């Protein structure tokens, strides 16, 4: 069998559960910690099933919680995340162009925007996402790259940011 990397110091599902069990909102905390521990920052079907079984919560309820909160990812996430705000302020200041430019640069050729789009490149290097509103409307349009908020973004600025990461990654 192939040796699994990253398994050594990741706490087991069971220990994460027992850490939070009994406290208010424990399912949320359990899922949050498990997602944080995951290499691809997501909750796999397997993990959700383990949580349900070990915590004695119906599967449908675990799924309900995992799909209700936008900070949970059910799909593996890229190493780098680009989040484009699609709130009204950002929209009127051109965030749709930012989204389309990034999609093209990352190779999503037939990209169609949906509410809460989230796409990950096949090499799992990048995830491109939209949010309904960052709450930073004064700085519109806003884009978060790997957690850093960039304000008054132009397509040119954003392309440079993405290209820079792409160059580092291909080295």
């Amino acid at each position, binding site marked *: 069998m192939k040796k699994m990397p990253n398994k050594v110091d990741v706490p087991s599902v069971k220990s994460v559960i027992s850490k939070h069990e009994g406290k208010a909102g424990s399912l949320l905390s359990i899922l949050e910690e498990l997602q944080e521990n995951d290499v691809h920052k997501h909750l796999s079907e397997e993990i959700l099933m383990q949580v349900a079984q070990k915590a004695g919560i119906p599967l449908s309820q*675990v799924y309900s919680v995992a799909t209700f909160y936008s900070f949970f990812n059910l799909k593996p996430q890229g190493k780098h995340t680009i989040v484009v705000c699609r709130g009204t302020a950002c929209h009127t200041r051109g965030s749709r162009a930012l989204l389309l430019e990034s999609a093209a640069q990352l190779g999503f050729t037939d990209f169609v925007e949906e509410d809460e789009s989230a796409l990950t490149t096949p090499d799992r290097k990048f995830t491109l996402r939209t949010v309904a509103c960052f709450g930073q409307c004064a700085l519109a349009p806003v884009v978060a790259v790997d957690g850093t908020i960039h304000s008054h973004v132009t397509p040119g600025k954003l392309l440079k940011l993405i290209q820079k990461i792409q160059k580092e990654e291909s080295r």
Partner: protein
Amino acid sequence: MSRISIKIDGTPVEVAPGTTILEACLSTGIAVPTLCHLRDVATNASCGVCVVEVKGGRSLARACVTKVIPNMDVQTASPRVMAARKMAVELLLANHPTDCLSCSRNGSCELQSMAERLNVRKVRFPSTRKAVAKDETSPSIIRDNNKCILCGRCVAVCKEMQSVSAIDVAGRGLRTHIGTFMDRGLKHSTCTNCGQCTVVCPTAAIVEKDETDAVFKALQDPSKVVVVQTAPAIRSSIGEAMGMETGALVTGKMVAALRKLGFDRVFDTQFSADLTILEEGTELLERLTKGGTLPMITSCSPGWISFIETFYPKLLAHLSSCKSPQQMFGALAKSYYAEKTGIDPANMVVVSIMPCTAKKFEAQRPEMQSAWKWWKQKGQKGVAPYFDVDYALTTRELARMIKNVGIDFSRLEEQTFDDPLGQSTGAATIFGTTGGVMEAAVRTAYEVATGKPLPNIELTAVRGLEGIKHAELDVGGTRLKVAVAHTLKNARILLDDIAAGKSEYAFIEVMTCPGGCIGGGGQPILPDRKKREARAHSLYVEDRNMPVRKSHENPAIAALYKEFLEKPLSHISHELLHTHYAHRQM
């Protein structure tokens, strides 16, 4: 406790503390409209149709969840209220398909009748929802989220009544929907196919899988011999489904309607219910005397079987090995009856009329091909495998067929079942209600074990709609404790006791649905306690009027043992009438 004085539309009203505005209004004859609310089932106040104006309140109040307080001044039909109600329904309609005319709930849909009642004639809002695929994975139930209004009733029954939680609200925002784990579909969830969600859904978002077309086709095929069996509970619910009063007892009319529909033989599942009593009763006595696994639990209810196979696989040995009456019937029709009459079993189509959606699933369990195996063992070769039961239709589907061909049901002359698989006893009739299998089993087991007639044939301790019932019986000096549970939540309580080694019972009856089969998931929609009581009452009336009321006194069953099965639990009985269970993993 002192009563609270409030005013409803200017009229003073006195109600008990803790009453909701809705209940207060209903008690004075004001029918505040409700859509999501369903008494004893769901109160998550999501639709906003029940709003009323409370003097001094800034926003409108939802009557279904707002409790009255002293001196409340309620307006139930102010212009503001009427506009808000209409808007609530319009918003639902904006995202709703417009195919009422070809919808299976056309005429029985609460959304449709609410739109009519509130005089909604146009929808001012654009649709914001995208069409989604139906969930057609289950052999019993089809879910169509396009028609879902997110009232939450289905989630509530699945969780609160059945303790199954196969479905829940999933997603957020515009994508909020009712779904199974990972949206894999009901078949790949813990769903027991009980169908309780289908009887509470206000719209066509959850319906039984309709097989009436296939049955019509079989009826029209001259090469087929189409045999029908009717479950005990149908005789007190099909009349209701055809517009007669709730609980109308219509055994003879039902038989006549089935003949009119063209069924070649009209038989009764009650025949095999009597047979179940002999097999199961003997099994119980064997377990008691030879030290088998106790308590023994009944196995007639297929939703219950899926439930224990999914959630309590370690307790499977407690189940009786008896097949359900539906499956015993199918196996015998295509072996015993086919052989006796010279009908080619491969040409026989067995249709069952069941109060149940899980029966569709049960009929398709791969092990339910006993007659085919039996013929094969007798040397028959080259015949493709067939199921013992070909189609299991619900009460609602039968009603649809009767309406379809234009039979005026209430005016039909009464007829009687065909022989011999149509002969039954009062004990079999009460199988259709919670406690009935237990009572029927006691009537026989007592007499078989003691050789003496039972002093009191009616076991009232296990009658009625209480969730878990108990009785203690004296069987020839031995005291036996028995219990009866209906709904899976109550079954779970008894199972947890068994798992903890605390169960004091010898025999337990479990039925999946509230009230037993009379409250089944295939029964007329929107049941409530009163309807269940009326249907159950009719079955007890029928039992009283039957000439024979004990299963072991059914002459057709005696003949069956003499001619074919030899004795209960014989080798051939095991082949045709008994089954096995397995851990159901998702």
